[in-house]
């Protein structure tokens, strides 16, 4: 068992809850009749060809309601098909809901064309002029395709994010950016001006637009408005609508506009529900059912009931909107998909065993993936990929996790396990993290020392949260590209010539040092253990850190103490993953203070680029530093239609995938997943029922 002691684990609570509700039998869902399901999905007791008793039948079953699942579902529904979406979580949106809503497409997509023409949006929300010159956004799909398969471009760490991209997949991706952008706009998604290009969305043109809503008196997706309360109140509260506070978009849209992934997710969700798509939440696919294990058509899925319960009240968490929901509570059911199953179940970043395939040292179970509280313990657990592997699916792009620094990094946030983002109270999953976390600017690291599980420093603290852009518009040295903006030359050998690489190389080894073995790492796992920022009252006075609730909480991720000795003891006895005492902490602090007195840090070279400060003024503080595995690269191998391929390269009939459940592409984020869903949703309509 990886955790030190069971504690108040959410996992345990959920398991209990499931067994408590085992009494629910078929009869309990008798109210969910075929009529009640409308034309979207129908309960059935038809016997499957393989002897499985199917509990539900639909045309298209979408596994996962995130950035690939929702577009797939809507597009299939637009073609008149019955669509059922299942999701392991209690609400719709997956990781997309907590995202920034930044979508890099391109190839001459409608928003690029709009900005090139100097036009605004149809609703007239956009008040700012285009942010780029027309030539910076002018391109076609061929140009985009070359950009995202460019063998020559490296990032500052010397990795090639475009070189290993699957060609067929990316040809289809480039060809469908136009359609996807238009599709999103047709489904209540509003886009800002084009502003640069999002991570690994290609170097040569500006392609990113960001989703927004307008602040208004009521939250009305059709009208494009959101209340301040639903958008979140800066520094105070999130909402069920938006787990992360929506940020000011005045520079990219105009006054009273706010942006992030809630604008994208809630727009798509609203449209999906309006169009009659059915949602079965709290329902996790555990198996894909194929005619024979390694041959024949995919017929449907087996799925289990995975409700989540509020830690304090025990109440089941419910979705924000519920029209179209099927409240199915049986422990295990089988769902027949007559035309196709789309696996959009997300990545593997929260599965330590799976991610160990890529980076064995990052097996520490204390470290989670982004959106940990939002998605719960079953989010991003590689379940869709594993289910595909069990029926003979091939994998792709397994090396690409190492090609981009977002895959795993140290986020600039302390005192929360869910360190990737800064959720505030107000969202139903806040009680799982209980602290928003202390958000850090890069200069703030001068006020702390970072130690490993035995209390020893491991790297120059000023480098902990440093990250470097990927090769994107507008290029230049910070992006790893020798030429700037329009001067950039695609597929040019000079882009990766050793003389250039030597100039631009800038590695990110702080994370590697953070997950390295230390004196507390024990066989057989050699876990690196938790990491701690150690600081004092002087830190608070100098840099005005807000360590009050909700930024910190008594949740085992933040401690204060009168002495360093007490601090070490508190961490050891109260943090769920602290397996060994911080035996060196007192000596580490003494040594650090001596370095400050001496004006130099012979251990890790601090003091040259920022002041050093003693840690000597009580009370003393410890805040958890939690590396995060954010992106997932490497997953099911798909072709240009989104069909999952087997080991012979043949499409598995009836099985589609996209987004982070699929591999073969090193493009970050929403741009990749949304287009995958759009492509598959279209391709599925060509399947014969």
């Amino acid at each position: 068992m990886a955790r030190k002691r069971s504690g108040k684990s959410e996992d345990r609570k959920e398991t209990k809850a499931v067994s408590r509700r085992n009494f629910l039998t078929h009869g309990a869902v008798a109210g969910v009749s075929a009529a009640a399901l409308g034309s979207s999905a129908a309960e059935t007791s038809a016997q499957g060809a393989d002897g499985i008793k199917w509990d539900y039948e639909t045309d298209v079953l979408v596994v996962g309601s995130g950035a690939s699942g929702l577009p797939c579902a809507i597009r299939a529904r637009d073609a008149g098909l019955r669509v059922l979406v299942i999701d392991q979580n209690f609400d719709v949106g997956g990781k997309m809901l907590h995202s920034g809503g930044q979508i890099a497409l391109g190839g001459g997509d409608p928003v690029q064309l709009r900005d090139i023409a100097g036009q605004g949006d149809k609703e007239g929300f956009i008040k700012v002029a285009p942010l780029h010159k027309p030539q910076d956004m002018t391109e076609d799909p061929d140009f985009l395709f070359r950009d995202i398969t460019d063998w020559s471009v490296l990032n500052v760490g010397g990795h090639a994010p475009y070189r290993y991209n699957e060609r067929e997949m990316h040809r289809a991706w480039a060809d469908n950016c136009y359609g996807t952008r238009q599709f999103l706009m047709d489904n209540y998604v509003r886009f800002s001006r084009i502003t640069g290009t999002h991570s690994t969305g290609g170097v040569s043109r500006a392609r990113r637009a960001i989703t927004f809503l307008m602040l208004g008196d009521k939250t009305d997706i059709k009208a494009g408005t959101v209340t301040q309360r639903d958008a979140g109140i800066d520094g105070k509260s999130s909402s069920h609508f938006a787990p992360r506070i929506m940020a000011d978009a005045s520079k990219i849209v105009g006054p009273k506009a706010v942006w992030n992934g809630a604008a994208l997710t809630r727009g798509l969700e609203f449209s999906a529900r309006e169009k009659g798509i059915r949602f079965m939440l709290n329902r996790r696919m555990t198996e894909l059912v194929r005619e024979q294990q390694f041959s024949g058509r995919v017929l449907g899925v087996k799925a289990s009931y995975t409700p989540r319960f509020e830690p304090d009240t025990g109440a089941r968490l419910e979705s924000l909107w519920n029209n179209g929901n099927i409240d199915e509570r049986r422990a295990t059911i089988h769902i027949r998909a007559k035309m196709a199953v789309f696996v959009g179940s997300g990545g593997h970043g929260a599965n330590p065993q799976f991610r160990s395939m890529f980076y064995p040292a990052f097996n520490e179970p204390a470290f989670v993936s982004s959106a940990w509280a939002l998605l719960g313990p079953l989010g991003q657990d590689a379940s869709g990929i594993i289910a595909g592997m069990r029926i003979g699916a091939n994998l792709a792009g397994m090396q690409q996790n190492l090609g981009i620094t977002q895959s795993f990094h140290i986020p600039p946030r302390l005192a929360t396990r869910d360190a990737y983002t800064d959720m505030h109270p107000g969202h139903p999953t806040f009680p799982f993290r209980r602290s928003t976390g202390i958000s850090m600017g890069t200069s703030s690291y001068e006020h702390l020392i970072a130690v490993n599980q035995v209390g020893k420093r491991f790297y120059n603290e000023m480098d902990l949260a440093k990250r470097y852009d990927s090769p994107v518009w507008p290029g230049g040295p910070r992006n790893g590209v020798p030429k700037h903006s329009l001067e950039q030359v695609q597929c040019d050998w000079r882009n990766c010539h050793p003389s250039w690489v030597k100039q631009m190389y800038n590695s990110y080894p702080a994370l590697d040092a953070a997950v390295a073995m230390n004196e507390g790492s024990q066989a057989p796992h050699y876990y690196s253990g938790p990491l701690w920022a150690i600081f004092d009252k002087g830190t608070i006075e100098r840099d005005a850190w807000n360590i009050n609730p909700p930024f910190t909480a008594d949740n085992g991720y933040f401690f204060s103490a009168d002495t360093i000795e007490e601090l070490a003891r508190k961490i050891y006895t109260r943090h769920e993953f602290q397996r060994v005492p911080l035996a060196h902490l007192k000596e580490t602090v003494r040594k650090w203070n001596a370095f400050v007195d001496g004006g130099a840090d012979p251990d890790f070279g601090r003091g040259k680029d920022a002041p050093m400060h003693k840690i000597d003024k009580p009370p003393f503080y410890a805040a958890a530093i939690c590396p995060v595995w954010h992106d997932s690269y490497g997953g099911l191998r798909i072709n240009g239609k989104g069909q999952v391929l087997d080991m012979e390269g043949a499409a598995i009939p009836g099985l589609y995938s996209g987004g982070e459940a699929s591999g073969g592409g090193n493009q970050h984020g929403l741009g990749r997943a949304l287009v995958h869903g759009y492509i598959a949703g279209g391709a599925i309509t060509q399947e014969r029922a």
Partner: protein
Amino acid sequence: MRPPEHLSSERFVSLPALSESEMKLDLICTVSPEEVDSGADITLKFCVTCPREWRESSVSIRNHEEAELVRAGLRKSGDEAYETDDIVLAAPRIVGEHVYRAVLVVTDKGGSAQEQAATDVRFVVKPHAALLNVWDLPSAIPAGERFKFTVGVKCTAGCDLGGQPLHVVRGDGSQACAVSLGRAIWPGTEALYFAEIETEAPASTGDDRWEVGIAALDCEHAAGSVSLTLRVVSPPDCVVTIEALDRETQKPIENARVVMHPYRAATDANGVARLRVTKGEYDILVSGSKYIPATTSVTVAADLATRAELDAEPPADLQDEAW
């Protein structure tokens, strides 16, 4: 997974021929911590494996005089396994090794109670340690000048140390000053007593290692001390004035840190810091909250004024963070 080290002391002794059925049970005790401050809490937990069903069972904890201190019920914790909840006891206020005896008392289905097993519970009572800490000590102290610093003392058991005398000893062994801890607790702490000390720096330059200590109050409290190194410098002969500004807005940056090792200061509301330094070569490091730190090298031969223009950190929006 292994239990944490402080929970790993497992001890058991089986009493001979305790049971009519010849059954020998192992009563296992975990003690946390094994070394405990006098009077502080000690946590015991017992478990036992037994294939038989009991009507009732408990653990009786007895001191060296066989007086029962507490009795705790056992509950089923698994197949054939029973355990107590955590039992929290106050450690005796006598320093040294202590051995309690824990006896498993079982009432079987027939209703008769028997002592089925016993084990020793060993732990060591330590005197409370005094943990000392020094802060606000100037990073450079001109020779012969008066200077201030603060000393805090924490009794590991949180005892009241208000009014207790401290000794402040110079590097040459002489007493620097007499001072006592105040009655108040340092803000933000649970039981840290403190004293602000003002005294005179040595006349000669160089590092001087001092010691601040507290004597043992009684047999329950150990003595404690902390050393501090004074960097005694020549009297400063120049004033360096540094103005910290936002490069873009040209507005002053308040509370920016300025370090010219070993001298350090913070800027005032006008973004200005003045450091009294000796002549020489320095690197000036300036950092402000949400600004990228800047470094410049200077030679100080006379009074000097300089500006440090800092670049603001990129705004949080549209940074990579919001992916």
